[in-house]
């Protein structure tokens, strides 16, 4: 059976007016896709629709080779789905063994299957423990083993690392993702944390108000953001608004050509990578630094704008600060500036 997930034109509407609109997605086995978005963007609803906890108003969901919603309706319990939750949700009245074996038939392979799964997640010998005696990370691994025991065609991760200690969060998360990839289970995780998405996912889908507004690999999304919200969400930026004059935006860092006619305003979102330093480059422009604030990896510069008494604040990487301060020069690389017309 081909392990993949295909969602076509999926729509859903809540009573409060919030909705998911014409959502399309295809995930292959071995792929981890992260749905990234703020609260209320519809990302958790999407997981609930795939799992069958909610019913879409139209569209089709195909898990493996089977349609589970659309021309056919398959109830949750028959969809062969694995799911991890933020609150982990191990059954408190059952031991590790019985938690993992929840979906298994108690035959002569029962114990050996559980042992194999425990070995897979690196928790051999935990069979008779209860969730109360384990750390959050251990509990989440047990939850993973429990989900894998059901041989899922697709794995849904509902912010499962949110409750873990920040110190060990990524170690545990990367371990879990590694196991899922090894088992060739297509995985969708939802998160509101861009760092988590960048570190764990092969592909990121950015959702806002029920729509996909951007998607791509982490590198692609960072370098080629296609929506102001995703540009700001995915990494550090400085944001400005300029009005076009004769198809040109006159920024304090240089001119940017735009294709529109006169009078339209644009939001220009600039990553810190846009600013570099080279003492003798002809492209360098001179700046009058009024203030600067060191923020670790980044430094916020406040310079006087080239016209009037206005000032401009933006981020540069701190590693060029010791050269920029004495020389008062910067090079502006336009390819790291994303320009969006304001409608």
């Amino acid at each position, binding site marked *: 059976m081909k392990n993949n997930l295909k969602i076509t034109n999926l729509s859903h509407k809540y009573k409060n007016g919030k909705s998911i609109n014409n959502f399309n997605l295809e995930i292959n086995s071995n792929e981890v896709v992260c749905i990234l978005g703020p609260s209320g963007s519809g990302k958790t609803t999407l997981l609930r629709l795939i799992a069958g906890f909610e019913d879409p108003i139209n569209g089709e969901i195909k898990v493996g080779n089977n349609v589970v919603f659309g021309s056919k309706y398959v109830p949750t*319990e028959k969809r062969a789905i694995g799911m991890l939750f933020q609150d982990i949700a191990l059954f408190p009245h059952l031991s590790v063994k019985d938690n993992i074996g929840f979906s298994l038939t108690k035959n002569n392979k029962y114990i050996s299957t559980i042992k194999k799964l425990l070995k897979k997640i690196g928790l051999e010998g935990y069979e008779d423990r209860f969730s109360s005696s384990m750390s959050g990370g251990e509990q989440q691994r047990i939850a993973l083993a429990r989900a894998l025991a059901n041989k899922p065609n697709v794995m849904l991760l509902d912010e499962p690392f949110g409750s873990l200690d920040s110190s060990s969060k990524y170690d545990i998360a990367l371990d879990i993702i590694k196991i899922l990839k090894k088992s060739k289970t297509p995985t969708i995780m939802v998160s509101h944390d861009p760092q988590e998405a960048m570190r764990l996912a092969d592909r990121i889908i950015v959702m806002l108000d029920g729509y996909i507004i951007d998607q791509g690999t982490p590198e692609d999304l960072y370098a080629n953001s296609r929506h102001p919200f995703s540009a700001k969400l995915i990494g550090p930026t400085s944001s400005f608004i300029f009005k076009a004059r004769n198809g040109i935006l006159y920024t304090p860092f240089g001119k940017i050509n735009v294709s529109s006619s006169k009078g339209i305003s644009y939001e220009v979102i600039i990553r810190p990578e846009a600013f570099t330093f080279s003492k003798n480059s002809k492209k360098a422009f001179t700046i009058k630094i009024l203030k600067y604030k060191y923020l670790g990896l980044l430094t916020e510069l406040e310079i006087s704008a080239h016209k009037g008494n206005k000032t401009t604040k933006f981020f540069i990487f701190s590693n060029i600060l010791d050269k920029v301060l004495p020389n008062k020069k910067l090079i502006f690389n336009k390819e790291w500036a994303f320009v969006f017309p304001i409608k």
Partner: protein
Amino acid sequence: MDIFFKNSWAYASVILSLIVILPILIIFFFLFYSGNDTWMHLKETVLASYAINSFILLIFSGIGTLLLGTVTAWIVVMYIFPLKKYLEWLLVLPLAIPSYALAYVYSDLLDYGGFLTILFSLIMFTEINTINFYSIYGAIFVFIFSLYPYVYLLARQAFIAQSGTYIEVAKVSGLNIFSVFYKVAIPLARPALIGGVILVIMETLADFGVADYLGIETFTKGIYKAWFNLGDIVSAGKLSIILLITISLIISLEKIMRGKSEFTNDTRIFRNFKFKKLNKFLGIIALIICSIPIFIGFIIPFITLVNWSLNSIDNVNIYNFLNLVLSSFTLAFIASIICIVFAIIIVYGVRTNEKIASPFARLASLGYSIPGAVAAVGVLIPLAWLDNFINGISLMYFNTSLGLILTGSWFALLFAYLVRFLALSMNSVESSFIKIPKSLDYVAKVLGSSDSKILTKVNARIGFGGISLGLLIVFVDVLKELPATMILRPFGLNTLAVKAHEYAIDERLGDASIPLLAIIVVCLLPLFILAKGIK
């Protein structure tokens, strides 16, 4: 079709809720039913006294329990004084003694030659022959001392939940402890206090035993008399609808009052009260204040009943008594099983699909605010109609009269218990299910479990404590129940409560004491569980 089955538990919940709502709805039909001669007669002669007496009872019982419950709760929450940790849970014990038992005990102790009459004569250096307890004042006294724990429990919980920050703010603002009490603690605890008083009012309006024994004409007694003495279902229904509307108004009033003000602990950091240790003198005053209701509400009646039972133990026919215990326990056991099964299905139905099942479940849970007598009338009407229908068919086709198959049966009585006590078991099941994260259901579901399997393998197992408690609470309430049992019991069926009441009415208080003690001992069980929580 699959989507329909997906919601099968929710639909089952709706159907079961409707079964329970039906008798309540039927009572409402009497609103539009023109009265007959009996009703007109009742209206002209006794209706006013039913209304006035019920009103006086609910007002004074409400005020009395509010004062007693709030003050005792405040003392045990705020201060450290001798025996505090025992008094904290001893204060709930009066709930174990049915109100009518308190009425039997005090009417005797205050009668001619009664222990308390003699005691008062000695204290006041004057001869007192008798203190007339057979009055509305006697009933108010009984209700205050048997029902104040409802207010006490809720007030105590509310005071504990109040952040110490509020009290500290009030104190640094210059308020003394009395001002803190009525300007800060009481307003913050108001929803809980009103909730407690509403429970007291419900119990007062639902009472039959006290009113019947002390000879006070109330609505519940009127309903019983209209059906039993006058055989008039229309008058019983009319009285029931008046009582039901009064209760609905009280509940609505409470909701409106609660709706206008939000009472939440809005301080960022919750801090417990800093208990204040009372000096020796004030400590003893606190001890006395908290001991009085325990003595009046539990110790004196319990000792009196034990004393009576020891004196009359020789009269007891052990075979008859065991029969009585067996029938009472069987009835209570079956009723509690039915209630808990209904409660589990309804609550679980709501859990699987709140949108479909919740409105009906809310209506079904209103039953506890409906007096037993009203529930009995509500059950009686559709069953009588069904009986007549079956009888008609039998006469038409077989020329044989089957008599009353359902009306005078266990079925009718159990149905009335279900209407009246379902809310208790629902509360218990709901409060245990609500603690189970919904994600456990989701996990079980994605792992291939059906809703039935999730209920049996997850919810029922984790919520087993709540289910057992629900079972026990309904069990003891059925044991204590009087009016519905007296109206609907099958011929020859006696319960401990009914027998005790019959003995008491015949002034055979000694004989009444043994079944009463049996009830009290069983009633103590859930209270000990509650007390464990308090400790």
